[in-house]
């Protein structure tokens, strides 16, 4: 740096004094000393820098804009380019890089911050040995934190191991610069300077990594050790709750979270928001979705309150400082509170929870907001598509609703001989949406886009063979095997290979369905075919894939091929979860112990629930396929068979097919009878009296072949 003159003894003394005051957080006196030093060495970039730091701290960390400007000036004076691709030239510039990274971190520009720290890393070793341990420690901790913020737990873990090996072990505080050591001893408030005091902090970091990597075995050990030492530490308590939550001990997790909402921490985080959010997560897993949504709503409200409160005090502070807003937007509130809002994380959780409440449209609104921030999360794109699908078809029992059944007969016109019955237009009508699919709306067209995004994001991960899964189990040391894939899914934890696989299956299944609904039969066939080729798919997915392929093939005029896929005898399982759900044996045991039957299985009910109904539905489709080919006898047989097991009330499609077959084969009387039996409201009594008397006691819910 361009120090122009020798440092005098007096200046040295002043500098030491200033640092002491700074360490004791006596910022007023620190500023006074710095002012004196500024007069003497106003051209020394380091003096200018520390003056800016002192001013910033004196403002209660509020004058962020001013500080950024000063930092930029100092960089110019010292000929340092923070953004250049080149690394650090002089280890003495570390603090400039660090302070820039700190600001970016609090602005939640985590990647930019990390990029700066990466340049600093090669100098960690000289940094710690030239005496500035405090800074070295801060840099390392911030870097670990940033790796965690950017969901790179493996990197964070690597850095932690590096710290333990190279920094903690064999390091006795340096003998160099005894003056500074004395200075530290003189300030009792600065207790964290010793490396030994690091360990608990590192342990907390390690646990966070393990939780994020879902290495539960290693995590258990770490948590246990933590609880012995610092069981009153809030972050430890939250971590313990998080661990129990991941293990499936939801009651325990809830107990850990406690009942009373906590207040803010001094780190600018609102514990109340976190508390409600985590309670929401627990209730989601307990399948109490409405209660979960209640908690997420509370968390959102609390978050809004905090942000509003902060904004109000910001305005006051600004007025106080005579600043009327303008271009300076960051000043007025403490730096560590700039990024305190958890709005988007909460929106993400809320959206998923609402979807499971069956509220497709509100869920869509939440998730659309979240996806602006978390575009790389394939889960999120699938959930958006699911919202669209749910908006299009609320439930698979939709077809059985009274309203749908009534639409089979649209109405009647005329009277007497002229009386005509109007058949309805059918169930699967093309609901063409208006507007372009690129504009987010809960349409199938948009769903198709979302699903393509999800597939694209998943495409980077190779498909694993079923034998690979065991290797992904965590090893003893808590490190992942080399095959373990961690795919980013912010704001949730990164996904491991089995999760990626499951997600891919679900995306393919939904893609096939959406393509079918959009009359894109070729793609529907392709997606379903790909799905069927994957190992380890759930019973329901295999069932659906065959069903979709059947319909797509029939629509592509390959009816014979289609019929192959619609064989009801092939349906053996329609569970939505994987048959050998590879849960931790310990976890399953725990689940059983808690004897909470609702915890197992799907988060959201899906119809058909049993194999019998599922068989009947696919048999109905078989009947429809035969009817398309003009094989009316077969169709009639299958239809009759299906109607026995499909369960009441019958889906509207069955009435259509029944009437279609009767009319096309000239069984007018039979058609009239069916209409009379099921749609009495549109038929005048006298017409069908004789038909009814012809078939006394006819079974009305099933149609036997004549």
């Amino acid at each position, binding site marked *: 740096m361009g120090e122009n003159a020798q440092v005098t003894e007096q200046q040295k003394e002043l*500098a030491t004094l200033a*640092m002491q005051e700074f360490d004791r957080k006596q910022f007023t006196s620190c500023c006074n000393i710095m002012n004196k030093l500024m007069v003497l060495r106003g051209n*020394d970039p*380091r003096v200018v*820098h*520390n003056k800016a*730091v002192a001013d910033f701290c004196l403002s209660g960390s509020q004058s962020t804009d001013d500080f950024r400007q000063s930092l930029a000036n100092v960089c110019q004076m010292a000929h340092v380019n923070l953004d250049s691709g080149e690394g650090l*030239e*002089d280890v003495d510039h570390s603090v400039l890089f*660090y302070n820039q990274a*700190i600001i970016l971190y609090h602005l939640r520009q985590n990647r930019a911050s990390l990029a700066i720290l990466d340049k600093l*890393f*090669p100098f960690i*070793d000289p940094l710690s040995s030239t005496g*500035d341990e*405090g*800074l070295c420690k801060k840099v390392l*901790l911030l870097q670990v934190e940033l790796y965690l913020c950017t969901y790179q737990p493996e990197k964070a873990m690597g850095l932690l191991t590096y710290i333990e090996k190279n920094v903690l072990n064999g390091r006795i505080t340096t003998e160099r*610069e005894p003056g500074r050591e004395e200075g530290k001893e003189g300030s009792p408030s600065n207790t964290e300077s010793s490396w030994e005091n690091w360990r608990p902090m590192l342990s907390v970091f390690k646990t*966070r990594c393990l939780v994020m990597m879902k290495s539960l075995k290693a995590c258990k050990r770490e948590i246990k050790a933590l609880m012995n030492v610092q069981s009153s530490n809030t*972050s430890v308590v*939250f971590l313990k709750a*998080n661990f129990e*939550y991941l293990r499936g001990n939801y009651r325990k997790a809830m107990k850990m979270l406690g009942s009373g909402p906590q207040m803010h921490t001094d*780190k600018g985080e609102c*514990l109340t*928001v*976190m508390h409600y959010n985590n309670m*929401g*997560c627990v209730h989601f897993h307990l399948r109490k979705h409405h209660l979960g949504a209640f908690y997420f709503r509370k968390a959102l409200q609390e978050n809004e309150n905090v942000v509003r409160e902060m904004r109000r005090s910001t305005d006051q502070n600004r007025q106080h400082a005579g600043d009327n807003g303008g271009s300076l937007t960051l000043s007025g509130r403490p730096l*560590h509170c700039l990024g305190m809002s958890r709005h988007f*994380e909460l929106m993400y959780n809320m959206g998923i929870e609402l979807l499971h409440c069956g509220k497709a449209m509100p869920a869509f609104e939440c998730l659309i907001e979240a996806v602006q921030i978390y575009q790389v999360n394939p*889960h999120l794109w699938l959930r958006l598509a699911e919202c669209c699908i749910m908006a299009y078809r609320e439930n*698979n029992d939709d077809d059985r609703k009274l309203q749908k059944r009534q639409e089979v007969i*649209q109405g009647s*016109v*005329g009277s*007497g*001989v*002229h009386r*005509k019955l*109007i*058949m309805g*237009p059918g169930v*699967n009508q093309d609901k063409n949406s208006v507007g372009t699919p690129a504009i987010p709306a809960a349409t199938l067209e948009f769903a198709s886009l979302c699903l393509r995004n999800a597939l694209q994001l998943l495409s980077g991960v190779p498909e694993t063979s079923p034998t690979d899964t065991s290797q992904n189990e965590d090893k003893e040391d808590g490190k992942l095997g080399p095959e373990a894939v961690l795919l980013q899914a912010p*704001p*949730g934890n990164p996904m491991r290979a089995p999760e990626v696989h499951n997600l891919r299956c679900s995306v393919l*299944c939904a893609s096939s369905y959406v393509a*079918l609904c959009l009359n894109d039969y070729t793609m529907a066939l392709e997606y379903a075919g790909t799905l069927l080729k994957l190992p380890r798919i759930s019973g329901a997915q295999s069932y659906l894939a065959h*069903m979709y392929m059947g319909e797509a093939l029939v629509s592509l*005029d390959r009816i014979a091929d289609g019929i192959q896929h619609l064989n009801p005898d092939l349906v053996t399982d329609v569970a*939505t*979860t994987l048959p050998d759900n590879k849960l931790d044996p310990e976890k399953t045991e725990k689940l059983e112990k808690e004897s909470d039957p609702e915890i197992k299985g799907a*988060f959201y009910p899906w119809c058909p629930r049993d194999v019998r109904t599922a068989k009947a*539905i696919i048999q109905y*489709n078989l009947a*429809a396929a035969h009817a*398309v080919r003009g094989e009316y006898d077969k169709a009639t047989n299958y239809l009759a068979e299906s109607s026995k097991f499909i369960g009441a009330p019958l889906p509207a*499609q069955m009435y259509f097919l029944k009437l*279609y077959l009767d009319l096309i084969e000239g069984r007018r009387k039979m058609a009239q009878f069916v209409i009379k039996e099921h749609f009495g409201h549109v038929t005048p009594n006298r017409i069908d009296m004789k038909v009814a008397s012809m078939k006394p006691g006819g079974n009305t819910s099933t149609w036997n072949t004549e």
Partner: protein
Amino acid sequence: MGSNMALSLKELASLLSVLSEDATQTQSFEQIATSFHHYFQKQDHFKEAGQYDLHWAIPAITPAEKYFLSQLISSPTKEMFKKTPTQIIQMDVGNMQNFDVSGLMLALTERHSEMPAMSKFEQFGKPGQINPDVQRHCMEELFTNNKPPVENCMRPEFIRLAPPLHIAEDELCWLNPTDVEYNIGWDTTMCVSSSVGTEVRRLMAKAFKGPLNPQQSQQLLAELEKDPKLVYHIGLTPTKLPDVVENNPIVAIEVLLKLMQSNQITEYFSVLVNMEMSLHSMEVVNRLTTAVELPSEFIHLYISNCITTCETIKDRYMQNRLVRLVCVFLQSLIRNKIIDVKDIFIEVQAFCIEFSRIREAAGLFRLLKSLDSEDPKAVAQAKAISKRTLDGPWITATFIDELFLPVSELLKSAFSEVSA
């Protein structure tokens, strides 16, 4: 059928008046057609045709009607149109010449077979014929409005089940408080660093730009020797390393040796390996190899880099110089056992043959051979191959170059011939 089959109320009224009971009782088809054309433009014909079709779709038609339609579709005759519909219905078709609709049916089937099964479904409705008021009302209901019921299509439909919601074990975002407070840092080096650092930095900045005089470099090296950590303060980033190497190789060597403990050393190495080959860079690498143990892949990379540079250089004089340099460098590496000959044998041998006109290359080749023959396995292999190929035509050096494992005996003779 077109989706715009809906008729406006006025159109429907016109059509009904044309086809009214009275008219059809008395007028011939020709007359009906005339009045039809009176009301409707040509582009509407298809619309109307659609409605006509519906008349015969359901209910079942009589043989007389069937005859009429078949005539109408296949070969309409003038006389036919002179009759009124009533006349036709009352016509006795029994003694008509054998009319055949099977051809028509065949044509229809053919047309259908060209379409996918799913699109064969057409609409059918059931308009009636008797009470004019009710009838008109009926027709209005069926044919007019936004979505006329007559467009309703009946066909077998699949039950299309939506997939279940995805099940993820860990999808939601759990929030944990951070444990550490991240605050702005104080520059502890303020007013404590001595002026020594400044002088070293000044000298180093000079060293990037040009050669230092012996006294200056002596001073620089002495300061670096005094404080082993000073090397991190002199502003030497990997990208700046080539400048020091070219201008002050002695300084570069010392600095690199000081940086050996740094976790960035591999970056310095990779810059060194990939920089333009020169006497100075070679000197630095050579000195480094004798002072510390370098990763072997790094040395191999450097050798390949050197060989490529020699091969591609255009200036003949420079090429000779560089080749000599490389040969001496390689000999030194081999004699000091810094590299294993086996690892680079083929590449270096090819290099020697290509530049066999240069004395140092021949020397290096002889060195290679002497080392190679120490390996009994290689000797045996070489002998076996030489037996096979000795009888063949004379093999040029460049040809041998292409052989995967060159024949040592043959090579030697070829080589002596070339050098002679």
